[in-house]
């Protein structure tokens, strides 16, 4: 009811005041109404059209295509029911492998990015002379997209590590990092942590700075040491930021594509092909759009589930506090 009052407030009160005939006021009312609809479409329309064409139509037609044998070359698109999904879950071992790898990668990346990001935030919120400089340095990798970062690290892993290995004799650097399944996996982890930690750090910094100074001062007067302040004051008070960061890293890790493409391109022998790259290859390299779209639908369901759980948890937290 409050809503309607507000709408009327926007319309100039002229009509209500004038003593015109009923017929006239009705037609002006209708005109007003059309004017409002027109304005609304003028303001919301342009972006809504783009949104519909670019997001809504492809999304819903994509659901349809995932049940077809569309191959992108011939015009004929035949309904095949659940065949694509059956194929993906029973015959396509590469997809299942990619799925497991992506899940494993996501878990590792979440833990490392958040611990390191939080550690960096703690470090730069101390009264260091180089705090601002360090903040910039830790954040800098985040500026470059995953593609450029992947290429930078390709060089580091291939030439840089080899050279450090020669100079120091440390066996870890003498490995062919990108040539082996396990080390290539860790290579991707290193790149994404190097990129993501600085970003997560910024959010933790904001949370740490919101902690009332008096609390920390009081604890210190009571004789708490640095570690006790961290455990009993800082960590509990940044908990809401932890939730945000956990889900930010979950979503971005699960969707990793650029760094995967430029660092290993799924190699060696598709052993580091994550889900997003697997979908891309299925559609645009193998030209099996129907199967690719079915995989994309599964991908969407997983991402959406994660996001919905996230929203539910954050909403719940808001109510509690």
């Amino acid at each position, binding site marked *: 009811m409050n809503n309607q009052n*507000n*709408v009327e407030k*926007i319309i100039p009160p002229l009509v209500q005041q004038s003593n015109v005939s009923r017929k006239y006021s009705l037609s002006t009312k209708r005109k007003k109404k059309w004017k409002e609809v027109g304005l609304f479409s003028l*303001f919301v329309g*342009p*972006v809504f059209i*783009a*949104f519909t*064409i*670019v997001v809504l*139509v*492809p999304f819903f*037609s994509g659901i349809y295509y995932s049940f077809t044998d569309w191959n*992108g070359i011939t015009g004929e698109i035949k309904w095949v029911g659940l065949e694509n999904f059956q194929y993906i879950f029973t015959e396509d071992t590469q997809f299942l492998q990619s799925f497991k790898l992506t899940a494993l990668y996501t878990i590792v990346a979440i833990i490392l990015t958040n611990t390191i990001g939080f550690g*960096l935030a703690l*470090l*730069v919120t101390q*009264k*260091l*002379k*180089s705090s601002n400089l*360090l*903040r*910039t340095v*830790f*954040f*800098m990798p985040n500026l470059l*997209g995953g*593609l*450029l970062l992947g*290429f*930078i690290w390709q*060089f*580091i892993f291939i*030439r*840089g590590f*080899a*050279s450090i290995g020669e100079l120091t004799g440390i066996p870890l650097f003498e490995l062919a990092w990108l040539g082996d399944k396990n080390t290539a996996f860790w290579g991707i982890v290193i790149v994404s942590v*190097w990129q993501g930690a600085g*970003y997560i750090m910024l*959010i933790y*910094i904001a949370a740490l700075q919101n902690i009332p100074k008096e609390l*920390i*001062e009081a604890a210190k007067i009571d004789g708490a040491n*640095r570690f006790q302040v961290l455990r009993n004051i800082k960590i509990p008070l940044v908990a809401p930021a932890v939730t*945000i960061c956990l889900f930010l890293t979950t979503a971005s890790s699960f*969707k990793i*594509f*650029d760094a995967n493409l430029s660092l290993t391109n799924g190699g060696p022998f598709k052993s580091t092909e994550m*889900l997003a790259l697997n979908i891309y290859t299925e*559609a*645009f390299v193998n030209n099996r759009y129907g199967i690719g*779209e079915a995989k*994309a*639908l599964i*991908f*969407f369901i997983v991402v*959406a589930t994660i*996001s*919905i759980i996230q929203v539910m948890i954050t909403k719940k937290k808001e109510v509690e506090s």
Partner: protein
Amino acid sequence: MENKYTSKTLLLEIFGIILGLLFLIPFYYVISNSLKSFAEILTNTSALPSSLHFENYLNAFEKLNFFKVFSNSLLVTIASNLVLVVFCSMAAYMLVRTKKKISNIIFMAFVAAMIIPFQSIMIPLIKTASSLHLLNSIWGLVFMYLGFGSGMTIFLYHGFIKGIPVELEEAAIIDGCSRFGVFWRIVFPLLKPITVTIIILNSLWIWNDYLLPSLVLQNPELRTIPLATFFFFGQYTKQWDLALAALMIGIIPLLIFFFSMQKHIIQGITSGSIK
């Protein structure tokens, strides 16, 4: 007290600086090797260059067709930002001020669509885009960025506009100002802080984006920096002197952008991600 600089703080400071240097090592390798001759890269990767080979840069500059590529990237980023800011602020304003069910439904559609991963729509998108002649055109790409960026941009504007009192606008309307005029003259200037945040977030995303332009722009003349870098790396695999110089050329504009707007960027990213 907190402000005292103790020996423990000094230890932390040293630790921090070592960590910072560790973070910078990859940049050191790329910069120093981009200035070496090919032979020296292979024999002496870790050392500083013995002589500076700026011709790597000239060579890469030319082979990348850098002026063209850079202006493509610039055009895409600026035009996309422009349409995103103009149309999304207008839409968000109308959605906040029109208290009707339809506003809520449209707003929820924009927000809900934010969880759709790009990979889930890219395949049919190319089909739709090709039938609408949006492929192989910078403007087609800009149109797509308007669609893809609309969710987050409207979300951020929506939250901000809700906090602006409506009384200002009412006064202007009584004075005879049109809704359009009210928005552009009174509301839009008030949106400046969130507009800065939005432009920074969208610029970093669009400038660095690889996948969407790679699907939309097949014509080599239209390539953006990430696309050109990708093809360059593919073509000159293991020709590190050229590849690294090209990589640096792609990184430099971002560094300039970052260092000239550092404060805004860090603030913008923090406030944008917490919402």
